[in-house]
Every structure is written in C-alpha cells, then in structure tokens.
C-alpha cells in the first residue's frame, strides 16, 4: 500500500533521514520507536509529504507522492494524520472542525463531476447539491462524535476542551475523510498522564476495525499491544525491525538493547 524507496531528508546541512526503505501492507499496524532526534517523526511526516523528501520515492497505491506534479491535496484526503499538538482549527467549533475538509473536498469533486457530465452526457453519476453535501457531512460528523462520546461538545471551541478531548476530536476529524491509512505522530506525548488512556482507547478501537496505521510513539506498552511490526530507528535509519516479541524480548542490536533498558 505504501512503499518507501531510499528516502532521505535534510534540513540544510543536517541529514535527518539517511536512506529509508519500508513497505506497509494494507491493514498493517506499524509502530515506530526510537530515541529523540532519530528521525522517526520526520519519516512519518514524509509519508504524506508534510515534509518534502530530499530524495527517494513515497509510493502510495503506486503514485509517487514525492513527484511535484502529483496533486498532493487529493492524495492526502486518503491519508489521515494525527499530530502531537492536535492542531485543531482554533477558530472553528468541534463540529465545524470535523465537517470542514469533507465539505470543501466534496464540493471540489462535485464540480469536477459536473464538468465531466457536461462533456459526456451519458455519464450517470450521482451529483449532490451543496446542501446535501453539508447534511451528509454533518450526519457523519455527529455519529463520529457519538462514537468517541463527545456529542455534547459539538458546538464547543477547541480552547474549551481538555487535551485528551482535543486529540480524540483530531482523530475523528481525520476519520471523517474516510482515509485508507492513518499516521500518528506521538499522539499522546503532549497529554497529561491521566488522559493518555482515553486517546489510546480510541486508537485501539481503530486498530481493531482493520485500519492501516503507522504510529510514532513512546508508549512501549501500547506499541507491544497493537503493533504487527515494530521499527526501531536511530540516527536516520531503521536499525532493526520485527514483531513486538522479537523487538521487545529478543533485541539484537546493542543500540536497541540500550534504548529498551532505558525506557522499559
């Protein structure tokens, strides 16, 4: 589903990623661990070109996202991302946060469809009016909020939510686009300890539903629980990878052994 070929990324003179090769299968849960500055967040952010790769390819369903001619916005509709600091839209209510992207992108698609239909009169596709698009997005948003138990916060602004609530809303904001894959960039690192649980719960449910996920995290217990595969990154390369058992119970590389002895 996602294939990373010889990915490198430099910020000025500093080379953060030194050649990453990685294949992520449909439905797979990949957890990335490693010390700070190892490049794990940068690697994740390259997967949807939030950072433009310096060289290499990111093949998503065969489309190279690193190619400047690819419409990256369209591709990102199917790649959800959750940030350490939530990044909810501060000037929008919870409901508007979830509805905004589906409504805007749907309108764009409908415009395209209408144009196609004009050229080719036989094309028989359902065209939604703006009101229908909005109604559906709202329905979907409310049912997503229901799912995470925050339906009563629909009209609240992000500043009125706790960290855990913000992150749960941020997760469903991504889900509202019906993504194929979800990227999590240290989703619990900015949370109070007592709120970590509620966010992990949502991610765990999502994992059970079969979503393809790439998770950068420092929660080793959680990594062990949900991962199909664990990657250990250090100094811009993937040093070791394997099943949670292999990585946590029988680490091979001395660097990984040292890292685990410090964090476990």
């Amino acid at each position, binding site marked *: 589903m996602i294939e990373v070929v010889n990915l490198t990324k430099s910020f000025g003179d500093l080379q953060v990623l030194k050649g990453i090769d990685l294949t992520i299968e449909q439905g797979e849960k990949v957890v990335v661990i490693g010390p700070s500055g190892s490049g794990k967040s940068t690697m994740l952010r390259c997967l949807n070109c939030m950072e433009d790769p310096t060289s290499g390819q990111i093949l998503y369903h065969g489309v190279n996202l690193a190619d400047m001619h690819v419409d990256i*916005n369209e591709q*990102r509709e199917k790649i959800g991302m959750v940030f350490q600091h*939530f*990044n909810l839209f501060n000037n929008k209510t919870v409901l508007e946060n979830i509805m905004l*992207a589906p409504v805007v*992108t749907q309108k764009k698609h409908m415009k395209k469809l209408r144009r196609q239909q004009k050229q080719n009169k036989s094309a028989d596709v359902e065209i939604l009016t703006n009101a229908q698009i909005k109604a559906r997005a709202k329905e979907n948003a409310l049912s997503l909020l229901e799912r995470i138990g925050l339906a009563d916060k629909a009209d609240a602004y992000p500043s009125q939510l706790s960290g855990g609530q913000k992150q749960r809303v941020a997760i469903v904001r991504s889900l509202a686009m019906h993504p194929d894959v979800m990227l999590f960039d240290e989703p619990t690192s900015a949370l109070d300890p007592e709120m970590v649980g509620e966010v992990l719960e949502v991610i765990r449910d999502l994992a059970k539903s079969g979503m393809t996920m790439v998770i950068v995290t420092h929660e080793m217990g959680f990594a062990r629980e949900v991962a199909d595969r664990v990657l250990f990154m250090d100094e811009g390369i993937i040093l070791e990878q394997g099943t949670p058992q292999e990585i946590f119970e029988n680490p091979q590389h001395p660097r990984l052994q040292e890292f685990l002895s410090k964090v476990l």
Partner: protein
Amino acid sequence: MGNFSRKVERFLEVFINAGGYVRVLEGLKNTLLIAVLGLVIGLAIGTLIATVRVLPKYKRLPRVLNGFCSFYVELFRGTPMVVQLLVFYYVLLPLIGVKMTSVAVSVVVFGLNSAAYISEIMRSGIQSVDPGQMEGGRSVGLSYANTMLRIVIPQAIKNILPTLGNEFIALIKETSVVSFVGATDLYVAFNYIGSNSYEFMVPYLVMAILYILMVLIISLLVKWMERSLRKSDRGR
C-alpha cells in the same frame, strides 16, 4: 466670554444660513468614504501581499512575486501620502490620459497606501498563528489557499484587530491631505466657514471635536468586534 458667544453666533450663521452645513456634510461624507474604501481596498490588497510574502520560497514564482511585493511596500511606505496623491493626480493620470474625480483618486491612493502598511501588519498576524494550524488543514487534504483563507487569516485578523483599528484611525486623520488635489474634506469645509465668517476659532474647534468623535466611535467599534471575535478563546 461675550466675545466667544458672538463668535459662536457668527459660526452658526454661516453654518446654517450660508450653506456651511452642506459643505461639512460633504466633507464628512468624503472623509468617511475615502477612509472606509481605502481600508477595504487596503485589506484586500494587503492580505494578498502578506500571503505572497509568507509563501514558501523554494520555487521561482513565489520568489519573483515576493520581490515585487517588497518593492511595492517599500515604495508606498517610503513616500508621504501627499506626495503619492500629487504624483497620481498631476503626473500619472495625465500621462495615461485617464480622468478621475479627486475623491476617486484619493480612494485609490489611500487604498494602495494602506495596502502597504496593512500587508506588514497582516504578515506579522499570519506569522503569529501556530504553523500547526496550516499543517492541520493540509493534512486533511485542504489546499494551501483554502487553509490560508478559512483557518489562518481569520485567526490572524483576530490577533491584529487592535492594530488594524489604529490603521483605520490613521487613515481617517490623514484624509485631511486630500484638499491638495481639490477634494472637499472636513478641513476644506470648515475653512470655508471660517473665511466666510472672518472668524476661525469656532470652526476649527468644531472640526477638532468632529475628528475626535469619529475616532472615539471607531475605537468603540473595534473593541466591540474584538469582544465578539474572542468567543473562540478560553473563558469567554
């Protein structure tokens, strides 16, 4: 004080009977028209310039546009408004052979001038918004322009509202230079009353009070807007 009340009488006489109020109303209308339209044009162009100036610069087109915009800003900030007005009215328009009323020219010049200042205000406003807001928008598939327009700029405007209010107040006050190209503003109107009553104390006093009143009203409006825009902040 008997002297002063006689002056007030003379002022009122010219103000009411000799058509002074018509000119004052016209001056008031022009002042507000030039300042408000100037602000609107300035906001539109200024926001555009600010957006260009915060664009990522690794492609050639943004770099060229950015160069052009900073030239524009330096040009309009580097010359006095009066000079811009005179150059527009007496140099540029005759050169290209376009006829415009002096009020219309003033609106254009005030708009272009405030665009230069507002672009810098807006740029600092945009840069004060957490970059995470842009990333949040881009991550769900919104375009750069869409995220800018719907997420970043509304938050930027909220941050810079007091400074924008200042800019508007400055524009109101600076309308007193449009008489250089023959437009009637408050100064021209009260000057007319003064010369016709041979008495300048009261007209200029009333003029000053009118300016202060306008500025006070604007300050109140800005405060009210700030309060209503703050509803998305913590602890409303």
